[in-house]
């Protein structure tokens, strides 16, 4: 497959572009890489205040861990979401941001998108590391799940990358894409059980059935791949249990599907890329 050989050839470039993103992002800021942690911490605190204290979202008890801390419950889903959201939005803009480079040098174009997503993986890994330490402090035991966690992170990266590839090329031809995506991502955020437990959706579906409404709310709700990803992350980190195989399989299919579609669309649409930039 030519994609594999292209990727192999541009390995060195990929590493360097990723390093550029990682190093360049917080250059000349006082806190440097600290910002990559401060941002999610601030979001976590705000959401905890709003949803934990004001709206009083019920906090489920961790199945094996016995945890009942809203911040941790939130963080186990919010950090993967943040990574996904950032990967899609920065990946989408990476071609336009590097227009100057694309116009002057030939290289394997997807490298730019991949490098952007990978650079966010670095931040994501640091965040997850901090989260694991916090979970340990609060009495959860996520360590045995770390190998599987890495696999799921890879799947989530592939899922995000596929979408980023698709949107990056769409954004070159239609600059409106990025604005639509901003709205879409907000919708997606609330359509995924991040700030609330899945239990609330189940309760709602039960109430609807009781009222004689047979709208398949749960089935539709569970079509969202991120719902599956979030469930898997929560199962491992918050509950310390084996995620459902069905969820893992769904994640795998979503990741592969997204990546294949992303690459195919990118390859098909890239021939006039430089002129349209």
């Amino acid at each position, binding site marked *: 497959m030519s994609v594999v050989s292209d990727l192999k050839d541009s390995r060195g470039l990929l590493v*360097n572009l990723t390093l*550029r993103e990682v190093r360049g992002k917080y*250059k000349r800021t006082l806190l440097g890489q600290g910002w990559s942690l401060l941002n999610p911490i601030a979001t976590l605190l705000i959401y905890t205040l709003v949803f934990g204290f004001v709206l009083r979202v019920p906090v489920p008890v961790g199945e094996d861990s016995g945890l009942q801390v809203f911040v941790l419950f939130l963080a186990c889903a919010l950090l993967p979401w943040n990574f996904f959201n950032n990967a899609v939005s920065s990946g989408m803009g990476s071609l336009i941001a590097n227009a*100057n480079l694309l*116009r*002057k040098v030939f290289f394997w174009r997807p490298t730019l998108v991949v490098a952007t997503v990978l650079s966010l993986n670095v931040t994501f890994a640091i965040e997850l590391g901090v989260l694991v330490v916090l979970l340990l402090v609060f009495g959860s035991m996520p360590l045995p799940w770390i190998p599987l966690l890495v696999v799921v992170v890879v799947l989530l990266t592939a899922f995000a990358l596929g979408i980023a590839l698709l949107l990056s090329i769409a954004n070159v031809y*239609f*600059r*409106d894409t990025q604005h639509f995506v901003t709205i879409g991502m907000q919708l997606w955020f609330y359509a995924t059980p991040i700030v609330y437990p899945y239990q609330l959706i189940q309760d709602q579906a039960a109430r609807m059935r009781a009222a004689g409404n047979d709208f398949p709310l749960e089935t539709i709700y569970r079509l969202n791949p991120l719902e599956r990803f979030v469930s898997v992350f929560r199962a491992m980190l918050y509950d310390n249990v084996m995620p459902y195989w069905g969820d893992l399989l769904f994640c795998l299919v979503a990741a592969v599907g997204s990546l294949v579609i992303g690459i195919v669309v990118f390859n098909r649409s890239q021939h*006039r890329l430089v002129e349209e930039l």
Partner: protein
Amino acid sequence: MSSTPAVVVDEVSKRFRLYKERNQSLKAALMRGGRASYDEYWALRGVSFEIPQGSTFALIGENGSGKSTLLKCIARILEPEKGDIRTQGTVAALLELGSGFHPELSGRENVFLNGSILGMTKRELERKFDEIVDFAGIEAFIDQPVKNYSSGMYMRLGFSVAINVDPDVLLVDEVLAVGDAAFQEKCMEKFVDFRRAGKTVVIVSHAMGSMRTLCDQAAWLDRGSLVEVGRADQIVDRYVDKSHEKEVAPSSSATPASSDGATPDGAPVKTRIGSGEAILTDVTVLDAQGLPANRFRTGEQATIRISYECSERVERPAFALALDTVDGMRIWAHHTRDGGLDIAYIEGSGHIDLAIPSLTLQPYTFDLSARILDHTLTHTYDFLRHCYRFVVETGELRESGGVVALGGRWNADLPSIASEATV
């Protein structure tokens, strides 16, 4: 060295879309029921030629002739609509120096970044790092962020990385004019090394003088179509002649014809200053046959004729001429007093000639200015700036570069190919 060409350009056509409404919005597209409407513009039309391995190849043509588009197609940055480009070996393009530098990163980090963008591996870069930094001459600043570099340093580092990629085919677009004279010399040396190593170089440039000497072969493009391919010196000469022909055409029609001796009224004037007691009615350059001409060859005979008209008797006037290159460099000036001609007075109308036995100018375009002054040379009666343009083309007397032909001869007590052949 194999005989397969380094680059084969086969019937290449490239189309650009010129959008009537440059707004890539979904709303606009939906309202129109499709993509934005656009005009087609063919930047290249069925261009075919081959670039032999180990040659230095020039792409020449006016602005908008498609040279850079073609270069970008060879570099695979643009994809041609039709046709095919095949290249042998690795290709690197020097289209813009330092593109891809990240301003906040240090010179060192950027060397590795830019090098890998251009296709070098980490190991190669580590091996060549010192050479790159040394060549750019910025050792002291290598750990500073490149945004603090002067533009010269920035370009030099960019060039240095790019030239060290060591590709089989190097594509160069107008980047020879980088840095100071010393750095340019180093660049030229590097190009020569490159040629000696049997590598192929493709250059796009408007510096015809250096293209003529640097390149073996050239392709001349005009509005997207190939005009000619062949030996660089011949193609360059023909191209220069042709483009000057076009340049002169409008100005020669604006210059009033005076061969019939008629005084033109309402002659278009470029810049006119003076008190007006005597005015210049015409300034013309005549060829050996005494006919006004706009094109001369190096070494030809020429006469500059200044026609004047006086509204009153003007005592002791002086006539002056000055010659500028088309880009504004003053190369010559002469007036009647320095020429030993002291005119008592002028009245009515008449003309005065300056005979030039041999036009010792190299091929270029020149603008003539003329002036009538009083005998102190401080008061101007009339001054016409750039009132006559003429072109010098390659003639019998051929020298290698610059604007003047000194008619120098090489003498040496050394064996030469020519003398051996005649012995």
